[in-house]
């Protein structure tokens, strides 16, 4: 899932100051699961705003949609939108932008910092696992992502800095390629570490689009 963190209150307050009628929009998917932007966080943020700015300073509304990254769910906000001067979005960066696209004439302010793609270790505890590099190499790296875990994001490793299982940057940081070596050798396919993965095409880091197989025709038709 996408993991986000609530922004410091001061930052949110500075953004919304001057807007009286603000709709705080939560998202019921990733950010709800990582406890940053579900309906409870919406209610709490609104209470904070009211306490800090006074009931005369702000009158926030609350709405939480299933997913802000789907236009169909954002459409549910249409009837509400005209009552508000601005939006606060508690979704990930994708949802925030889609909300801004849906209501282009109104300011949309982010209330969370979108942090990473990660996993849930325990309630409120998450770990980054993938940098969305676009050329997944997990098949040859024993299911361990070198882009995320290796400080240099090496597709082929380890480098000379590997240090008894740790990375040279510090001993708390595991060496991704050491772990990859361990896992591949435990699975009896260590020879795969010798396969050279071609350098990633980092020019793919401009905004990417994905069309899932089988949907090409449909989308071509949509694009006319």
């Amino acid at each position, binding site marked *: 899932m996408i993991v986000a963190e609530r922004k*410091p*209150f*001061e930052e949110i307050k500075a953004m919304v100051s001057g807007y009286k009628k603000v709709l705080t929009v939560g998202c*019921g*998917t990733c950010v*709800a*699961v990582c*406890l940053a932007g*579900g*309906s*409870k*966080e919406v*209610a*709490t943020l609104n*209470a*904070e705003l*009211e*306490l*800090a700015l006074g009931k005369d300073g702000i009158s926030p509304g609350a709405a*939480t949609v299933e997913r802000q990254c789907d236009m169909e769910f954002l459409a549910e906000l249409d009837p509400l939108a005209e009552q508000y001067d601005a939006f606060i979005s508690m979704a990930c960066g994708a949802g925030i932008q889609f909300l801004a696209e849906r209501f282009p004439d109104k300011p949309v302010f982010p209330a969370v910092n979108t942090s990473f793609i990660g996993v*849930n270790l*325990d*309630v409120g505890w998450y770990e980054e696992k993938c940098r969305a590099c676009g050329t997944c190499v997990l098949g040859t790296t024993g299911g361990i992502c070198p882009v995320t875990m290796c400080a240099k994001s090496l597709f082929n490793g380890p480098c000379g800095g590997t240090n008894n299982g740790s990375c040279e940057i510090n001993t708390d940081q595991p060496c991704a390629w050491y772990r990859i070596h361990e896992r591949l050798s435990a699975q009896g396919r260590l020879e795969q570490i010798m396969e050279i993965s071609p350098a990633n095409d980092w020019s793919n880091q401009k905004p990417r689009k994905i069309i899932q197989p089988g949907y090409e025709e449909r989308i071509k038709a949509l694009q006319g």
Partner: protein
Amino acid sequence: MTAEKSSNTIEISINTDVLVIGTGAAGAEAAEVISAQGYKVAVAGDGGQDIAQSGRAELIEGAHIRDFAGVAGDFRACFVKDGQRLERNFGAVVIAPGRNVRPQAEPFGLSLGERVITLGELEKILADGNARSKLGGAAVALLLNLTWEGDPQYTARVLEASLAIQQLEGATASIYAGNVKVAAPGLERKFTYVREQGVVCFKPMEKPSIEQTGDKIRITTLDSILRKTLVAEYDYLVVEEKAEPSDRDLDLAYSLRLDTDLEGFLPSNNVHRFPVNSNREGIYIAAPGLGANIALRIKELFGDGVKSVPADRAVVDPEKCTICLTCYRCCPHGAIFWQDGVAAISPLACQGCGICASECPMDAIQIGGFNDKDLRRQVREAVAATQKPAIVAFCCQNSALEAGRAAAEFGMDLPAGLKLIKVPCAGKVDVEFIMQAFVDGADGVMVAACHEGNCKAERGNLFARWRVNEIRKRLEALGIDKQRLLFTTFASNMAKGFAETAAQFAGSL
């Protein structure tokens, strides 16, 4: 599995088969008494032929739990037996804990040998007629609870062995004891009897020093009763066997989602529970002599296989649930599972603490008798109707509420603007309620929980404290004095303490 009976109760049909894990004495005893109640019992573990022969219970020999799911009345256990997977359903589970034993010779700088033996070795010698004779005429010292807490069962074994030695021709037994744990039927009496039979008992003030020279063991100790340093020589020294939770029990605790006590033993301590109950409904921990208690609890749980339970104890709104698993991970009673893409709560296993409801990021869970709307209304009314300073006190019904009400009844001075709001557990106090109270105009908010280690819901008070600490930080960031939010703990009999704390808090506002 469930059928609606009326709008507020439902009838649940319960699987009344019982799984006993562990074939030792405690497991066999539990199996025996439970099956005598008329329930089907299966015992899983190594050995246990005697159980199979008794015909009282089915033996699933050599089976070890691999996966475990479900809730009271409907547990699903997956075993591995001879490399095969075996799935079975049960309504309740009894665990007979195993123990790892660590001999305590090393803390005295000794090593085990011919003359320095463990209690287990001594018991073997005593049980064997030929071996026993070598103890004739010997002076034997037994150590008891000097290197670890100990427990009544261990005390009983030491007393039994001492008595057996004392009865051998010319042999004497001396016990060097720390705290003697006698909290078991007849044990206190036995301790007196053993001393009457001539077993000498020393109570060292500090760790005795023990030296071995050849076949002789010399113990130097400062006795707390005689207040004198005593030196004595023995032929044999019996060191303690410190019990540690077995690896199997630690694995079981993990896969059955059970809490352990601080040392890792099952179950965790909770004064609100019967000693045989774990933190999960339908899972019991056996110990020798407690079989009947377990059978009673199981009978209460099962009845005749159909149980009427409140339908609204804790209910998930499937429209709101995003299946984040937060509630599943937070429920201290393991009452939550998931089904058809949403969280589901077993009305049989749920204890109604409300921790899940306050943690749910989508406010998808409502607790019977404490739904969010009512609580919010109560907060609003409390703030609107009171004199200054207006204090909203969220009080756990198991402790602070009783203390607060008693304070009022005894006519103690309570701040005029103080309003108590009853919550099932401090863990039900939601971040939103506290924030809302301030928005509505409360001057102060008090979250009053049970003392640490005393929460009926195991750790609802911890959840409450964590939340209060977090909100205090948020209040500070808003430029609001964080002292306006107080976390405090009470026992139900602390009326005076409640009045004092409330008065102090009101004064500070």
